[in-house]
């Protein structure tokens, strides 16, 4: 049966290895390597997020030396539900590395050329299988020919414009991928994909007003609430208070919900999906007039993403704070307010 399996096996194995795009970092790390050869390994063992790779790169002066390529890996949920660790980049970074192609068991591989593509894709789930590439960069690595033994190609995409963040939603997915194609006339081309994640960081907004509002039902319930900001970063804390001006209903409790509203498509084809990501109890029991209830909600425990507005005319992701009062008959009174979520550079 071996030959049968062999027939469906690709003719060669392709591996894609990333190099860190920033030379500056490489130099620093080169020095670090010399000093801390031993301790870094200890560090490797400990950290899950940081993967340290040692590989051969060519330095600027052409000398081959030992360098350390460091980049962060983050979890990414695959279609099959598995979570894998993939490298993390941001816009304007160099994405470089090397491809090695190794024919299976010494067979030669004939090909019509080897190329690597960097793709930014938006995939709508209701339109499954159709990807919309908003970014597509190609590097030809080899002209048609034959490969007899393991062959390595360095590649580099410099200062790649990646304006959108990787996003995995209910109805839509935005992903970045490296695609290596060994084109062959017969037997089909050999293709290898490597996902990576893009996150873009935003500086703190210069204008960040609080949200303050008085709402109510006439002669029944009047409240005034205040959230300290309208824009929060992902690890931010929502501070605020609710002031009860009039209470004529028997309130049982009050929650603050974080809701994500994902809308996909446009026009008549718009799909809106709303999820409640957080349900945080603010108050237990019935307040009386004049009570003021504090709000302090840490965002870090929740899996939020930045707000995405009209990404390539394909989709939007917006966040809302929903203040919900529940009375003793389980009637719900609520007021929803949009907030903007952004990603603040960590360690800065």
């Amino acid at each position, binding site marked *: 049966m071996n030959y049968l399996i062999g027939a469906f096996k690709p003719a060669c194995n392709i591996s894609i290895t990333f190099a860190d795009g920033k030379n500056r970092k490489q130099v620093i790390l080169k020095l670090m390597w010399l000093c801390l050869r031993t301790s870094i390994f200890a560090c490797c063992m400990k950290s899950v997020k940081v993967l340290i790779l040692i590989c051969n790169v060519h330095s600027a002066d052409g000398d081959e030396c030992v360098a350390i390529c460091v980049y962060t890996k983050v979890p990414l949920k695959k279609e099959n539900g598995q979570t894998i660790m993939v490298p993390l980049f941001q816009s304007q970074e160099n994405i470089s590395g090397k491809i090695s192609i190794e024919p299976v068991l010494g067979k030669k591989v004939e090909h019509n050329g080897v190329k690597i593509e960097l793709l930014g894709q938006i995939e709508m789930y209701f339109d499954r299988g159709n990807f919309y590439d908003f970014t597509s960069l190609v590097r030809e690595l080899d002209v048609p020919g034959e490969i007899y033994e393991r062959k390595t190609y360095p590649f580099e995409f410099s200062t790649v414009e990646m304006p959108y963040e990787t996003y995995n939603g209910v109805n839509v997915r935005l992903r970045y991928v490296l695609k290596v194609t060994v084109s062959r006339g017969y037997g089909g081309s050999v293709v290898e994909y490597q996902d990576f994640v893009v996150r873009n960081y935003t500086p703190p907004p210069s204008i960040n007003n609080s949200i303050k509002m008085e709402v109510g039902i006439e002669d029944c319930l009047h409240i005034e609430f205040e959230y300290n900001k309208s824009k929060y970063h992902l690890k931010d804390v929502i501070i605020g208070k609710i002031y009860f001006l009039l209470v004529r209903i028997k309130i049982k*409790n009050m929650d603050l919900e974080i809701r994500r509203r994902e809308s996909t498509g446009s026009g008549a084809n718009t799909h809106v999906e709303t999820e409640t990501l*957080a*349900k*945080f*109890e*603010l*108050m*237990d*029991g*019935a*307040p*009386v007039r004049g*009570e*003021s*209830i*504090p709000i*302090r909600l*840490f965002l*870090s*425990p929740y899996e939020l993403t930045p707000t995405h507005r009209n990404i390539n005319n394909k989709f939007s992701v917006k966040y809302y704070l929903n203040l919900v009062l529940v009375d003793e008959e389980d009637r719900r009174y609520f007021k929803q307010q949009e907030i903007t979520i952004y990603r603040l550079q960590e360690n800065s």
Partner: protein
Amino acid sequence: MMLSGDEDEEKWLAEGIAGVQHNAFYMHRALDSNNLREALKYSAQMLSELRTSKLSPHKYYELYMRAFDELRKLEMFFKDESRHGVSIIDLYELVQHAGNILPRLYLLCTVGSVYIKSKEAPAKEVLKDLVEMCRGVQHPIRGLFLRSYLAQVSRDKLPDIGSEYERDAETVMDAVEFVLQNFTEMNKLWVRMQHQGPGRVREKREKERNELRDLVGKNLHVLSQIEGVDLEMYKENVLPRVLEQVVNCKDELAQYYLMDCIIQVFPDEYHLQTLETLLGACPQLQPTVDIKTVLSRLMDRLSNYAVSSADVLPEFLQVEAFAKLSNAIGKVIDAQVDMPIVGAISLYVSLLTFTLRVHPDRLDYVDQVLGACVKKLSSAPKLEDSRATKQVVALLSAPLDKYNDILMDHLDDGTNKVMAMVIIQSIMKNSTCISTAEKVEVLFELIKGLIKDLDGAAQDELDEEDFKEEQNSVARLIHMLYNDDSEEMLKIICTVRKHIMTGGPKRLPFTVPPLVFSALRLVRQLQNQDGDVAGEEEPATPKKIFQLLNQTIETLLYVPSPEMALRLYLQCAEAANDCDLEPVAYEFFTQAFMLYEEEIADSKAQVTAIHLIIGTLQRISVFGIENRDTLTHKATGYSARLLKKPDQCRAVYACSHLFWVDDQDGIKDGERVLLCLKRALRIANAAQQMANVARGSSGPVVLFVEILNKYLYFFEKGNTQITASAIQSLIELITSEMQSESTTLDPADNAFFASTKRYIEFQKKKGGAMGEKYDPINV
């Protein structure tokens, strides 16, 4: 099957406890393996059991205590960073990720307490944050317990003076601020309980609230324990803030409890220096608040403080404590229009006690208090409440503890008597039984104005009518003094005796009789008790009482009121008879006879007396033959020596009864009966003759008819000495007397005789033994 409310609650509590235990088990496992994440998860689940609304405060407390114990273990874990590897600051954030507020806040308080201990942040900041965040729980019971947990864990971490958490002088204020705020919030929750839920369970809810009150009061206690709360701070900050809350909450239960709390937990010195503020709050309380008790307690405390050391007295003077208190009481009484009179009086009692203890030298204060009280009483309707009466007694007795007589002298005589009458009347009206000698003592001190002449009292102004009425009241009052216990009763009697003996000749005739009868009642009571009372010390024996009575009655001799004394002697004799005390009875008779001989000169009085003596003697069975003979002999002797013949006659025939007691064992000396009757007849005859000689007309035939009736009586009773023929001849005698010309016929006499004859006819016709007996008599 429907479960009753209690059973339901038991079930819910059991479920709650099971839930706590279950989660606590997993929490322990997590703690043992230093697994922070799991520990937080299970502790939050455990605390979720406290989210129940189904339990009454009592049951909820039980559940709370279980969780509380578990939280101590969690706190130990939090303290040891090496076990969980998370800094306290991060931990403080981490616990706030919990979605449910109640578990979140319990955990926050727990971590907060560790946070303060770590000193990584100023205690002030953490405390302020905690007390603010706790606002999220607005449910009264859950909120109260949560905040009580906060108070509990923070108690030893307040930035007090001398505490390790103190940073600078300002921090004491932070500690105070924190406790005050927690107190205010707790009180609001506590008050709110009253207004939630259906109205019909009001009573139950009040009971439940009462169970929770100490949670609120605990804060005041904590405040009082803060070293940094000196007088200055108490005066400027603490008290005004607390009072503001008390007044503003407008809740009867809370106001009463908290006022009391303030008074109990803070030092006396503070109260003294802030009297104005404290008292100023009183009229602002709800009208239904039992302010009198509150003020009474305050005054009690202050007066205790005053007597504790002589050094503090100047302070009292300096702050004009009395004036302030007096003023405040006046205001409270004015403000609380519906306050029952008993409340007002008891306020005055407290004020009086206060001034007596603090300013014993200021009689004018006493005067003021009593004056105010009289004013209040005079404007009020009569006292109808026995409690009010008691308070009046207390009011007036209070000074007596201190000065005894000085005080009453201070009041003018008139007021004094009015007060006394008020007291007595109200006792009467309410049938208040005064049951101890001590109370009696106090009472008599109070009504002294009625009991004896006061020095310098203007005797001549006395109105006879008023005097009688007063004394009758006193007499009635004596009957109200009663105790079932004979020992105590004897004491009461002795006390009363002591007092009334001072009353002087005008009062004794009014007061001695009720005393005697009261004593005799006791004698009867003792007699009804079987066996001897085996008292170790002077049991109340009838003998003893009789001795006492003897002495008491004797005093009437000097009044003089011999007739009264005689009657009382006879009453006593009869009582002695019932007690089988022959010598005592004899002694009383001797006394009575001596009185008769020596003191009773008036002939009418003599007649009355002799009949009383005879009547009493007749009933007495205790005497031996000799004694009896002596006494009956004396009695007959007196009878025969009365001045007027008809009186003689009547007394003598009455004496016949002394020889014939219609009892089973009674003496039945027919011969001497006959002798008496014959003697009576002789006297009647003599009377007749005397009348003839003196006035030329025949005397009253009625004496004969009366004697005839006696004959008939003894005849019927089977005295063999009385024969039908004797009766027959007596009838004839009367008939002839009546027909004699000289007789002036009184229609009444005629009718009397006629009906006597009719009676004989009737008995004859009736047949039987009696008819046979009467048969020989012809009318």
